[in-house]
C-alpha cells in the first residue's frame, strides 16, 4: 500500500486538521468528537443542514460546508459512518432554533447512527428531519436488499437543499426540496480499479487488467457484475441507460448532468464520458441545462466514474444556480 499518510489510524484526524487549516475562513473544526461546522454557524433563523458519513469520499462532506450548502459535516473513519456522539453535537451546534435537516446516504450504518442522533437531538428539543439519499440504480431488487445506496445524487441534494435553507425555507420546506432532488436523480457507477482502505492495507477487490466492475458504490465494494473493458462511449451508454430508464427521461426533459470521478481518474477522461453522455441525452430529446464534471464524491483513489442525471424544474434550477461558497463548490459568492 502506497499512500501519503503517516499512520492508518490518524488519516482522518490529520486530513481534517489540514482541511481546517486550509479553509479557516470557511469552517471550524471540532476535534473530539470530530465534526466540521460552517464558520458562522448557527446562522440565525436558518434551518441547519448536517450531513456526514464515512471518510474517503472527499471532498464530500467537509468540502461542502459553507454558505449555501451544509452547516456541518460529520466524518467517520474511512468508509465507516460516524457515531451519534459526533452527529449530535454537530446537530446542536448548527441549530439556530429553526431545526436541522440530516442528509443521510442510505447505508445501514449511516441510517442507524443518524437515527440515534436525531432521537437524542429531539430529546434535547431540536426538531430534526431526515432526507435519505438513495439514487443508485445499480441496486436492483431493492426490496430484497438494504435498498438503493446514496451516491452521486448526494452532492446535488446537499447543494440544492442548502440553497433552499439559505433562502429561508422552513424545516419541512428544506426537507421536501431535498426529497424532491432525491426523487429526481439517479446514478450509476463503474470502477476500472479498486481502492485501498488505509487500515486494510490491501486493494478492496481484485480486477484483471481487462475487466471493469459495473454498478459499484463508493466504498470500494465490488459492483453487480464484471465485464470486459470497453471503450468510454460503450461504458457511458451502459451507465446511462438504466439511469435514464429509471427516471423515464425523454423528449423535452431538462436535466443536470453530473459526471463524477471516483478519485483516481484524470479529468480528461471524465470529459470524454461527459461528451458521450450529452450526445445520448440529445438523441433522447432531453436538454442538458446544467453540468458538473469532476471529483466530487469519491472512493479514495479508485479509478472510474459515476454518471448522475437530475431532472430539473425551474425551482431546482434556480436553487442550483444560487450562490454557494464552500471549499469544493463555489459560485456567486
Amino acid at each position, binding site marked *: 500500500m502506497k499512500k501519503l499518510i503517516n499512520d492508518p489510524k490518524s488519516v482522518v484526524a490529520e486530513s481534517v486538521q489540514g482541511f481546517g487549516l486550509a479553509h479557516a475562513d470557511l469552517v471550524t473544526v471540532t476535534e473530539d*468528537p470530530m465534526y466540521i461546522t460552517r464558520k458562522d454557524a448557527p446562522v440565525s433563523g436558518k434551518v441547519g443542514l448536517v450531513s456526514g458519513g*464515512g471518510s474517503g469520499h472527499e471532498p464530500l462532506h467537509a468540502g461542502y460546508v459553507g454558505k449555501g450548502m451544509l452547516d456541518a459535516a460529520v466524518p*467517520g*473513519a*474511512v*468508509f*465507516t*459512518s*460516524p*457515531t*451519534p*456522539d459526533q452527529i449530535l453535537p454537530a446537530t446542536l451546534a448548527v441549530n439556530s432554533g429553526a431545526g436541522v435537516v440530516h442528509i443521510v446516504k442510505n*447505508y*445501514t*450504518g449511516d441510517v*442507524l*447512527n443518524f*437515527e*440515534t442522533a436525531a432521537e437524542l437531538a429531539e430529546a434535547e428539543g431540536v426538531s430534526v428531519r431526515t432526507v435519505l439519499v438513495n439514487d443508485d440504480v*445499480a*441496486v*436492483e*431488487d431493492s426490496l*430484497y*436488499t*438494504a435498498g438503493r*445506496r446514496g451516491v452521486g445524487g448526494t452532492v446535488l441534494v446537499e447543494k440544492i437543499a442548502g440553497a433552499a435553507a439559505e433562502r429561508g425555507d422552513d424545516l419541512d420546506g428544506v426537507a421536501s426540496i431535498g426529497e424532491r432532488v432525491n426523487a429526481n436523480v439517479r446514478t450509476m457507477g463503474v470502477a476500472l480499479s479498486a481502492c485501498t*482502505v488505509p*487500515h*486494510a492495507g*490491501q486493494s*478492496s*477487490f481484485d480486477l484483471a487488467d481487462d475487466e471493469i466492475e459495473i454498478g459499484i*458504490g463508493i*466504498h*470500494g*465494494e*465490488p459492483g*453487480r*457484475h464484471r465485464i470486459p473493458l470497453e471503450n468510454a462511449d460503450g461504458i457511458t451508454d451502459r451507465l446511462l441507460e438504466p439511469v435514464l430508464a429509471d427516471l423515464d427521461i425523454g423528449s423535452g426533459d431538462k436535466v443536470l448532468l453530473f459526471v463524477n470521478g471516483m478519485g483516481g481518474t484524470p479529468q480528461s477522461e471524465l470529459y470524454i464520458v461527459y461528451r458521450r453522455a450529452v450526445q445520448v441525452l440529445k438523441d433522447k430529446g432531453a436538454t442538458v441545462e446544467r453540468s458538473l464534471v469532476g471529483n466530487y464524491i469519491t472512493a479514495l483513489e479508485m479509478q472510474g466514474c459515476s454518471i448522475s442525471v437530475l431532472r430539473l424544474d425551474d425551482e431546482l434550477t434556480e436553487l442550483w444556480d444560487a450562490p454557494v461558497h464552500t471549499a469544493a463548490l463555489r459560485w456567486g459568492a
Partner: protein
Amino acid sequence: MVLDAAWAVKWLNLCAEAMAEHRVELIELDRAIGDSDHGENMDRGFQAVVAKLGEGTPETPGAALKLTAMTLMSKVGGAAGPLYGTAFLRAATSLGDSAEIDPGAWAEALAAARDGIVARGKAEPGDKTMVDAWTPAVDAARAAADGGSADVLAVLVAAAEAAEAGAVATDPLVARKGRASYLGERSAGHRDPGAASSALILRAAVGAAA
C-alpha cells in the same frame, strides 16, 4: 463458576483480545463482500471498552454491559456500532442490577440482545447478517438452560458453538441486508463478517468462565 461482574469484565477484555487477534481476518471477510472495515471497527470499539473498564470497575454484569453498549455506540460507527450497541444495551437492561447471572437469565439476556439487533436492523434469519449467529445462539442457550438447573458454563458453550455454526452457515447465503446485499448473488460463498465477530464475542464469554 458464577457469572458476576468480574466475569463480565474478563469477558469484555477477552472480546477485545479476540478482536485484535482476528482483526485482519474480519477485515478480509468484509473486504470480500463489504467495505473492509469490520475488523478495524470492532478492534477500535473494544479497545475503547477496555480503556473505559480501566477507569473503574462496574459493580454488576449489567453495568459492564451498559458501559460496553455506550462505548461501542460512540466508537464503532458503521452498521455494527449501533447494532452491537443496541444488543449490549438490551442485554444490560434484561439483566438489571443482579450481581450474578443464572443460566436462564443469561439465555434471556442473549434473546434480548438478539431482539435488539432485529429491532434496529430489521434482518430476518437467513439474510446473512449477525442475526444468523445470534438466533441459533439464543435457541441453544435457552435449550441448555431449560429447567433452570443447568450448568452455566454449558449454557455459554452451547451459545458459542451455535453462534459459530451459525456463522459458518452464512457462507452459502445470498445477503439481503447490510452492505453485502448490494452484491446480490455474488455475496454467496463468503462468510458474513458480523456473524463471525458475533461468534468471537460469544466464544470469549466461555473463555471468561473457564
